[in-house]
Structure formats: structure tokens, C-alpha cells
């Protein structure tokens, strides 16, 4: 079957998005084709601005519009506790629970020799620097409870312990192997409250 070139390209590009198969991509492309020009422009603009207006917070590596993210800027947060997470999406998941009022630190991944992710490729040095500059008393390791996440927690715990800070990790209430991002809010909330000392 012959498909007009622009349509074929659009389907191809859309199907590169996560959880979008060929069929869904085709449906989306045909839907966009029928949309008003204004709406298409708004969609394009919002996608473009995602890339141009958002950057990483210079302190915690969370997504941010400015130099510092909303959490780091806030005066209402407890600045003596840092919660270490893998990705910015985990910050969103934990914020939704309203169970945590401290600061974050986004590592940008977890250790994985198989895929070549070393301590250097993560924001670990930046985290250690924060311990020197800021007055941190407790660190919560909230990495995903899978093989790599747990090993990264063990690695961090070894580095942090000699610095005389309280180190805890979130309770194993989360579905094993389940991503923080996909766990429901109540579960994450419970896991934050019942954290364990390492």
C-alpha cells in the first residue's frame, strides 16, 4: 500500500514515542491532520518549549524553568533532609503524595556496568558537594527497588555513612521491580513514612 510521504514520516516519528505502536501512531497522525491549525500550532509550541524552557536545576538536577527549581527556591521546605531519586519523574511521583517536605537530588540514573553507567555518569559528586555546602542532617535513598537501584543505594550509603549523617532507605512496600513512577500515591506515601535506617 502506498502512503503519502508526509503522512508516512509523521507515523514513523510518532511511533518512536514510548508505548505508541504503529497503529496508534497512524490514528494520531490522521487525527492531527484533521485538527484546526491553531491547535496544531499550540501543540508544536508546547513541545518546543519543553525543550527550550526547561533545564536542570543547578542545585538538585530536577527539571526547572530557572536556575533553581521550585522545590529548591521554596522557603517552606525542610532544608536539612535530602531525598535522592533516579529521575525527575520520581520527584513528581513523591510530590503528589504530600508526605515529604525536604529537598531532592536527582541522580539521573543508577549504576549499571552492563550499560556502561558508572558513578561518574551520575550526579554523585554533585551530591557529595552539597553535603559540604548545605546543612544536611538526613539522607533518604528513594531509588527504585530493583537490582541496580538497590546496589546504587548500597554504594551511596557507603559514601555517606562516614560523613555522620542519618541515612535511610524507603521501605520495601513498593511492588518489587516496580518503578516508583508507576506505584500508586498511597504506596509511595507509606514507603516514605516507613523508611529504614541503613
Amino acid at each position, binding site marked *: 500500500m502506498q502512503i503519502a510521504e508526509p503522512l508516512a514520516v509523521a507515523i514513523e516519528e510518532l511511533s518512536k514515542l514510548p508505548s505508541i505502536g504503529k497503529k496508534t501512531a497512524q490514528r494520531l497522525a490522521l487525527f492531527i491532520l484533521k485538527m484546526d491549525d491553531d491547535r496544531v500550532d499550540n501543540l508544536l509550541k508546547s513541545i518546543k518549549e519543553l525543550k527550550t524552557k526547561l533545564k536542570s536545576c543547578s542545585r538538585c538536577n530536577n527539571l526547572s524553568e530557572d536556575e533553581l527549581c521550585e522545590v529548591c527556591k521554596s522557603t517552606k521546605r525542610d532544608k536539612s533532609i535530602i531525598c535522592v531519586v533516579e529521575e525527575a519523574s520520581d520527584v513528581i511521583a513523591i510530590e503528589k503524595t504530600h508526605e515529604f517536605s525536604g529537598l531532592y537530588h536527582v541522580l539521573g540514573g543508577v549504576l549499571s*556496568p552492563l550499560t556502561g553507567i*558508572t558513578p561518574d555518569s551520575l550526579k554523585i559528586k554533585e551530591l557529595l558537594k552539597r553535603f559540604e555546602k548545605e546543612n544536611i542532617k538526613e539522607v533518604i535513598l528513594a531509588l527504585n527497588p530493583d537490582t541496580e537501584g538497590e546496589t546504587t543505594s548500597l554504594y551511596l550509603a557507603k559514601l555517606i555513612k562516614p560523613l555522620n549523617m542519618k541515612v535511610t532507605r524507603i521501605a520495601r512496600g513498593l511492588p518489587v521491580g516496580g518503578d516508583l513512577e508507576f506505584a500508586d500515591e498511597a504506596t509511595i506515601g507509606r514507603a516514605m513514612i516507613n523508611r529504614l535506617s541503613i
Partner: protein
Amino acid sequence: MILASIKLKNFRIHENVELKFAGNLNYIVGGNGQGKTSILESIYYLCTTKSLDAKTDSEVVRFGKEKFEIRGEFIGLTEDEVRVIYDKIEMKKFYLLNEKQLRKSSDVIGRFPVVMLTPADHAVTQGLPGQRRKFVDSVISQASNIYLENLLDYNRTLKQRSSLLGKMREYRSTEMMNEFDAWTEKLIETGTELIERRIKFIDEFSLYVSESYYRIMNKKEQPSIGYFYLNGFKNLKVKEHFTKLLKEKKEDEFRRAANLVGPHKDDFIFTINDVNLKTYGSQGQHKTFQAVLRFAEFFYLKDITSKTPLFLLDDVFGELDAARAHKISDYLKEVGQAFVTLTDFGNFSFLKKDRDDYLIKLNGGKVVYA
């Protein structure tokens, strides 16, 4: 719980076939190439998401077709419909329970427990240690999700750790040593849990093995299973010993860039009256022991999970002497629902078909209930 029916589409030789099953014994009879074994294989898929011996899912798809589908109807306290679909082109497998997709194997395994005795079981008593670990792991995994999760976690840790060891062969920085220590700690954490669970399992399972052995052999012989772990260590301080061995082998591990200590090196030793089966057993003793292990697995899972496993027996009567075969056939009357493949029912005079049992004949794609 029983499997009431299955429907197969493009599954091995079966283009489109539907079978109804009895709640007790189902004898599936047919000549070579009629697809008896693939009926059992499809049932195994429904219970575990995978084949017992096929290396890939695509080899199971009927020649020239793109995907297979297995549909099974389980009836117990609830009625459940399971569908397993494999798409060869997209290389994707779907497991649907009542039309809801289950994504993790640990969500499936143990839900409908299954035990299968096949000629390939010779590897369990006669093959390499890995085959015995596979046997033990598959039994405990069906009894405990936590064990299965822990096993997957451990295997993933092994892969990551050996990848890191490979990198450290060329160059070792302090940072890498710290990372190595973290992976080692993870290895000890998950590995210790595995070993402790296996110790407990062998302890419990041994009773079931003895019981099944007496039923099939009717002799005053004592079978037993020994568990060999951490270089033959026998002490309950597993973690301490594991840690110590890893320290001792550290340089070796760096040199060979391989994981040298842990439950992935374990073995299980079967004996009869303290004589090692693997080394001294006769062919007949091996066959008997393989059947004993599967009956033991059946009754163990039944007690632990409070569900009656499906029992699949592939072509086992041809290889046993008449006395053993007779005993096993009697024993089968106690298991609940079983599926037994045979080339010809008439050849086995000791087999009894009760009124409620099914005799299902497969011939050239046709199904006849005799």
C-alpha cells in the same frame, strides 16, 4: 482447580484444535508427529508463560504462521480464562488472565501450579549441576513469589558484577573498587537469601521424596537429597561464610573476570542408602528417581500452595519396567487432574481408565474421545 478445556491456534503442528478435559485422568493417545507432547507443552505455557524445553517461543509457532495462541479455561473456586499469545514478527508475548494483561512472570508463576515429568528429566539426575538447580528453583518458585523475585534479582546481580569484573581486568580505580564492593554486598544479600531458602526447602522436600519413593518402590531403601553450597560448607552462618569466601577468592575473581562464589555454583546430591545415584545408579534407578522427584514436587506444591497442581506425564510408561509403571499408574489415581501421553493405550495393560477419565485420540488433526 482443574483445566476444563484448551484451544490452540497455530501452536506447533496444531492449526486449530479444541480439547475438553476430564477432572481426573486424561490419556492423550497418538502416533509420532500427532502433537501429543505439544498439548502438554501448551498447558505448561498456560501455567508458566513458557515452554519447558523449547529454547525460543518462535520455534513453537506453526510453520509459515506469524503467531500462536493458547486459550485455557480453569475452573476452581473461580472460573478463569487464560490466553497466551506470541507474535513472531513483533517478538512479543502476551499473557492475559480474564483479558487483563499480566506483565511480570512472578505474577503468573504459582497461580496455576504445574508439574511435568518428561524423558528430558534424565538431565535432573544425570546431567550437570545447573539442571538440578533449575529443578529446585522451579519448584520453590512455584511455591514462593518472593523466591522467584530474589532469584531474578540475584541473576541480574551476577550479570552486572561480571561485567564490572571484566572492566576491572584492564583498569582498577578506587571508585571502581567502591562500586565493586557495592555489587558484592548486593550479591551477598540476595545470595544468602537464596541459600537459606534452599536449605529450608531441601529439609522439607526430603520428606516428600521419601514418601514418594516408598510408594513407587515399596522397599526399605532410604533415598535422600544433600545440598552442596559454598564449597561444601555446613553451618547456619551462611552470610559470614559467603563473605569470607568472597574475600579469599577476590584476586581469582579479578584474574578470571568471573563470579566464582555463590548459589549459582550449588549442587544437589541424590543418594539411595547413602550411595550416590549420579555415579552408581542403574538406568532403572535413575528413571524411578526422576518420577519420584516429580511426585514429590506435586505433593509438596499441593501442601504449600493449597492448590492442586496439574500433573503432566509425557511418554513415561514406555521407559519403565512393568512393576514400576504399574505402581506409578496406581499412584496417579491420587493426584487429581493429570495428562498422560501414550503412543498406544492397548500396549499398557496395567493402565486403568475409570468411567470419568478421558481417552483422547489424536489423528491427522482430528480429535476423538474414546
